[in-house]
């Protein structure tokens, strides 16, 4: 249970109980039996889960987390089951802001103390040799500040990446933050509480503050202790601490799920102790060979190594000692348990989800590990990297986190776009050598993945199957690779016969490896459906940006696994793995006419006005001209389809948006790649992810999706893989055009935050001097500007809504197979199409929920008529699915 809130200084702590009328009542509870409270649930029926964070709970059971004191233990347990997809403590705020810290109690030491509020940590005593140690730790917020110019910074960064979330990583000073998730991730890659505290203390200029120590202990004490292992096709709950297993077995739900074989004569089990636990020897990474990894010298047993080093450190200077020590401990972390035994009990395969949930509730979240080398049931896939394929150091590092103890861990690897995420995925597949299900976001990237598999690995074409709306193949042989999209697999509506058969096939078998591309873009519930319906032993999520505007990122941690590795963008850029980018924000003055209208208009049409600002047109035109002359290949992003067309048509350049047919897309992309005469293309949101254009070296963003940090990063990613990146002095360019004095300015600052924290800097360009000399400037005279203004004002209302085009094509395909009821998926993408056809208005938003859903049904019946022949251009004209973007989120979360 989570009622031990971290960081509480007192022996008493507050529990928030929601009374029926929604009023919170604070009650004090003494902190008795802290250890047992996690197990003996019925004794502590009060939960302190923050209702705000309760995102995983379906609406129907929305209140289940604010449990009123219930005397019936069974009822309480049931309610917890509903809630429990993630461990309790992970849902908590890491540190309380107020309770633990009484500002008035702190002595006011000098006149400037007041300026820091709670942030005055001068009471922390510096260690004597603090200058050779690279970091500070803030009490309270658990922020860590690192001197990246310290000689041992590199080791420190490796360590910090493992235990904390990077907050900002510019050149000289980095900031990291310890969170329950990050600590969970640290534990799951094998670091133990002691290691974390030791190394942290050694690196820190100040002693680790008590509350941080306490929090680290709290978050790591139960995490990572229990693992769910699939061995010989039997599910085991494994732990090196027998007492924890005993405790879990005392739980009624878990013990009822236990598979008890009266005559356990399995050859792998050595002994059965009194409690009936099975003992195995702990897993090791010996003999494991990550594909493509450079073979290291044989490692000495870690215990010995560490001992030697401690001796050495006394002699050699402090500095070096710290350095080596950290490395040793980082290495050792994985192999610490080498000689130990682990205990396990088996559970029923059918009950696996239940046990998993239960463990989360008991605050012993299970880590998933797959002992793929001992899996004899699932057939091996004959796959390996081609001999010519080499992986880069950071790719190797990320994979070594994944395969640290010889088994495959589930988790997420975060690499910037263009840094070779695909290769990491393929290498992991080559290491596991079992059947792979690979899911990505669009059918374009499905084809790209297939092509990459063929390029880097020895897999044969007949072993790769593609499952999209167009193609429904199966691989030959008993093991193989299936590549599909999230929407295809998550679709719960009725499918065509073929698709259904394919789905049955996917559901029916066990997958050794589930590879999830671009995990951050997938809606959380779609995700959950995929993850729970596919039986996969290992899940690996790949992404460039682990940020979402909707906090759902936390769910990923538990749906897939902890973040295993996160690369530093600037660092990779400096080492030449990704292109160096010059970012600029170009301020475009609003012409007086446009600005006058802007001030008059409602928020919706304002967007169109600031996107269609003639100055923006001119600057866009000038930048294109300028960079074409430099020999750059340019991508222009315009989110708004109306504006996209207007821009592209005015400048006489090709464009791709959700409605562009597949053939057309391919044709344009091909031309862009190979035709020296075509150097610029316009893309809508569909180009944000997965369209791979290594030729592009310059990017101009005309309009964008509000304040989405992720989109900004994704778009930047389009030019990070620039072919010419290795050239000396090569720079890629990223321009963001912003209409001055409009909302765009505000969004723009928000959007850039992620990249700024990664160390990128946006130069503000207020005026392009040379532009006035440019002769062919469009909209040069006032009359044409006013004409443009009239066109914009005449434009349909819907033109101003930002289109949600991601994956539209794929989904329109999925939709074509639909004959049943609507689900969220449709609702989301449907928006685009209707607004393009201009057939709707949004007045329904003001209706009550009931009416809205009724009209939704009506709309669906009209959609039925759309045959499967019509692909993307054939739009259902139902008006009811239309949502204003601002309401969309609200709506989606409701369902």
């Amino acid at each position, binding site marked *: 249970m989570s009622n031990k809130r971290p960081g509480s200084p007192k022996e008493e702590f507050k529990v928030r109980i929601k009374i029926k009328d929604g009023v919170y009542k604070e009650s004090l509870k003494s902190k008795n039996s802290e250890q047992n409270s996690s197990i003996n649930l019925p004794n502590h029926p009060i939960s302190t889960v923050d209702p705000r964070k309760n995102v995983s709970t379906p609406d129907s059971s929305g209140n289940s987390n604010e449990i009123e004191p219930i005397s019936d233990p069974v009822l309480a347990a049931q309610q917890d089951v509903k809630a429990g997809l993630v461990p309790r403590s992970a849902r908590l705020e890491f540190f309380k802001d107020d309770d633990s810290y009484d500002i008035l109690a702190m002595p006011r030491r000098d006149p400037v103390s007041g300026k820091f509020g709670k942030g*005055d940590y001068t009471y922390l005593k510096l260690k004597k040799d603090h200058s050779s140690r690279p970091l500070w730790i803030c009490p309270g917020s658990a922020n860590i500040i690192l001197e990246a110019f310290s000689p041992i910074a590199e080791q420190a960064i490796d360590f910090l990446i493992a235990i904390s979330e990077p907050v900002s990583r510019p050149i000289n000073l980095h900031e990291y933050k310890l969170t329950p998730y990050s600590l969970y991730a640290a534990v799951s890659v094998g670091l133990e509480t002691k290691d974390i505290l030791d190394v942290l203390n050694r690196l820190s200029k100040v002693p680790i503050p008590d509350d941080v120590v306490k929090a680290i202990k709290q978050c790591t004490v139960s995490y990572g202790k229990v693992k769910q292992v699939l061995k010989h096709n039997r599910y085991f709950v494994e732990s090196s601490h027998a007492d924890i297993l005993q405790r879990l077995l005392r739980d009624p739900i878990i013990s009822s799920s236990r598979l008890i074989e009266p005559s356990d004569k399995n050859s792998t089990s050595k002994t059965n102790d009194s409690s009936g636990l099975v003992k195995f020897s702990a897993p090791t990474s010996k003999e494991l060979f990550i594909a493509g990894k450079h073979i290291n010298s044989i490692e000495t047993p870690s215990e010995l190594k560490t001992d030697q080093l401690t001796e050495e450190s006394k002699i050699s200077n402090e500095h070096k000692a710290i350095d080596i020590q950290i490395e040793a401990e980082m290495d050792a972390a994985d192999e610490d348990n080498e000689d130990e035994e682990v205990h396990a009990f088996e559970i029923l395969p059918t009950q696996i989800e239940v046990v998993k949930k239960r463990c989360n509730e008991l605050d012993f979240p299970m880590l998933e590990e797959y002992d793929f080398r001992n899996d004899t049931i699932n057939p091996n896939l004959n796959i390996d990297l081609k001999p010519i394929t080499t992986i880069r150091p950071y790719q190797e590092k990320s994979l070594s986190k994944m395969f640290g103890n010889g088994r495959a861990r589930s988790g997420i690897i975060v690499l910037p776009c263009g840094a070779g995420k695909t290769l990491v995925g393929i290498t992991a597949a080559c290491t596991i050598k079992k059947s792979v299900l690979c899911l990505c976001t669009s059918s374009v990237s499905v084809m790209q993945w297939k092509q990459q598999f063929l390029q880097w690995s020895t897999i044969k074409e007949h072993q790769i199957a593609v499952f999209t709306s167009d193609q429904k193949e199966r691989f030959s042989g008993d093991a193989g690779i299936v590549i599909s999209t999230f929407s295809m697999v998550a679709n719960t509506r009725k499918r065509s016969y073929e698709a259904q058969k394919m789905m049955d096939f996917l559901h029916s078998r066990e997958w050794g490896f589930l590879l999830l591309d671009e995990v951050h873009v997938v809606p959380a519930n779609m995700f959950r459906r995929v993850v729970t319906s596919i039986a996969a032993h290992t899940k690996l999520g790949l992404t460039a940006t682990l940020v979402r505007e909707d906090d759902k990122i936390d769910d990923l941690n538990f749906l897939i696994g902890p973040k295993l590795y996160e690369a530093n963008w600037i660092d990779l850029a400096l080492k030449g793995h990704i292109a160096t980018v010059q970012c600029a924000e170009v301020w475009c003055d609003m012409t007086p006419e446009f600005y006058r209208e802007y001030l008059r208009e409602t928020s919706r049409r304002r967007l169109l006005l600031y996107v269609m600002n003639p100055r923006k047109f001119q600057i866009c035109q000038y930048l294109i001209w300028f960079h074409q002359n430099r020999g750059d290949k340019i991508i222009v992003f315009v989110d708004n389809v109306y504006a996209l067309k207007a821009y592209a048509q005015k400048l006489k350049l090709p464009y791709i948006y959700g409605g562009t047919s597949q053939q057309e897309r391919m044709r344009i992309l091909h031309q862009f790649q190979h035709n020296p005469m075509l150097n610029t293309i316009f893309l809508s949101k569909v180009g944000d992810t997965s369209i791979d254009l290594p030729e592009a070296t310059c990017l101009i963003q005309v309009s964008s999706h509000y304040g989405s940090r992720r989109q900004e990063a994704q778009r930047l990613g389009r030019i990070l893989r620039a072919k010419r990146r290795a050239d000396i002095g090569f720079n890629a360019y990223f321009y963001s055009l912003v209409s001055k004095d409009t909302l765009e300015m505000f969004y723009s600052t928000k959007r850039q935050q992620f990249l700024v924290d990664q160390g990128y800097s946006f130069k*503000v360009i207020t005026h392009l001097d040379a532009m006035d000399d440019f002769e062919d400037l469009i909209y040069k005279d006032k009359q044409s500007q006013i004409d443009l203004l009239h066109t914009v004002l005449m434009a349909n209302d819907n033109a101003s809504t930002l289109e949600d085009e991601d994956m539209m094509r794929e989904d329109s395909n999925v939709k074509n197979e639909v004959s049943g009821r609507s689900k969220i998926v449709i609702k989301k993408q449907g928006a685009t199409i209707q607004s393009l056809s201009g057939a709707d208005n949004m007045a329904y938003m003001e209706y009550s929920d009931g009416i809205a859903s009724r009209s939704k049904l009506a709309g669906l019946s009209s959609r039925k008529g759309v045959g499967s022949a019509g692909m993307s251009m054939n739009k259902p004209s139902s008006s009811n699915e239309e949502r204003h973007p601002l309401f969309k989120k609200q709506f989606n979360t409701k369902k």
Partner: protein
Amino acid sequence: MADQNQSESEESHFQITILEFLEKLPEQLTNRLYRKPTSCLAVFSGDRENFELLNDMHYNSTEETEEIDDYANEKWESVLHFMVGTSEKKDHPNKSVLQLLRKSGLVTNSNGENQISSKGFQFLLQDICSQIWIILLQYLNMQEDGESDIVSVLGLFFQLGSLEFGRKYRVQNMTDLENRVFKDLTELGFIYKLKDGSHSFIPTRLVSILTGASNTSIRATIAMLNSRNNSKNNQNILSNSTQYSEVDVKDSGFIILETNYRLYAYTDSILQISIMSLFTQMVYRFPNMVVGSITRDSIRRALSKGINADQIVTYLTMHAHPQVREKVPPVPITVSDQIRLWELEKNRINPTLSFLYHEFNRQQDFDTVHKYALQLDVVLWVDEKRRTIVIKAEGHEPVKEFVKRRMSSKSSNSSIGNTSTANHK
């Protein structure tokens, strides 16, 4: 100051410094000096001797000089602290110093609170030598307002300047004015008065700046002031000289500004922290480092005090940490640009002096005036519905005449307001 050759005689140092000093004096002051050649001579020749060397005893031992240094430093810093608003009430400088700061415009008074002005911030950006000169010049200026005999004040400065640090002197036959100046200088930390009740005193190191006695002594003074700033709280920083970080801090920069607008400053100097907090949102503070964020709000707060963007950038550049000093420029361009842009944001309103005409009784009256004003091309803004018109300043007289004439002919009454309107750029 005093860039002369060491080999030159003590005398020439002195004279050149005086010349430089005189150049800095406001013109009317020097004019007055030169108009009275006798007193001028008196100043330079030093025929009046106000200070008597008491004995040959030198205060050379560290404990003794340290006490004097402490005193000088404390006094001097209390002035600076007062300016940035971090001094406690009891540590406020005395009245005449306060008056000096206010009169010189280094500090402004808004709503009864003393606030640092743009000039004051500029002052803080200077090195200590210049600061002392500025203060003394301002002091002279203030004396002039007060009808005092500026010549004798100047004379006293020079006499003081010729005194030697660490020696004991006694005051003798001073005029009232000189007594007052002497007291003020004590308050500013130039003079350390012995507490034994006698009229004896010891000049502090600050005095050496007064005359630029020699480069070494000036350097000693600066070092004294700087090191105090940094080491007061943490002696161990200095005692422990190590490879890379804080070592060079004390006589070089300490600020690292990152492209994400985070400011990291390796300092524990209360003065520096409070200067930075003028334009930075402070976040964390460790014994040897502070973390802050430069935000639009924090910069705007500074701008509203009259501190300008260039001053802030100069400060950040001047105090850049050795780690970033190699880079050109040490302050990320994006950040310095942004600070300037934030400043520009404030200057988007162009005031135009103009006059508001409203409450025309009849539409017809309004129309005629409007038409007339249009002819003169002096209409700045007009709202026909509300019968309101704004006339540029240069058109005010003729339009007023025109309205008056009409008013006298018909009994229309239109009131004329006086306003200054704003133009969106």
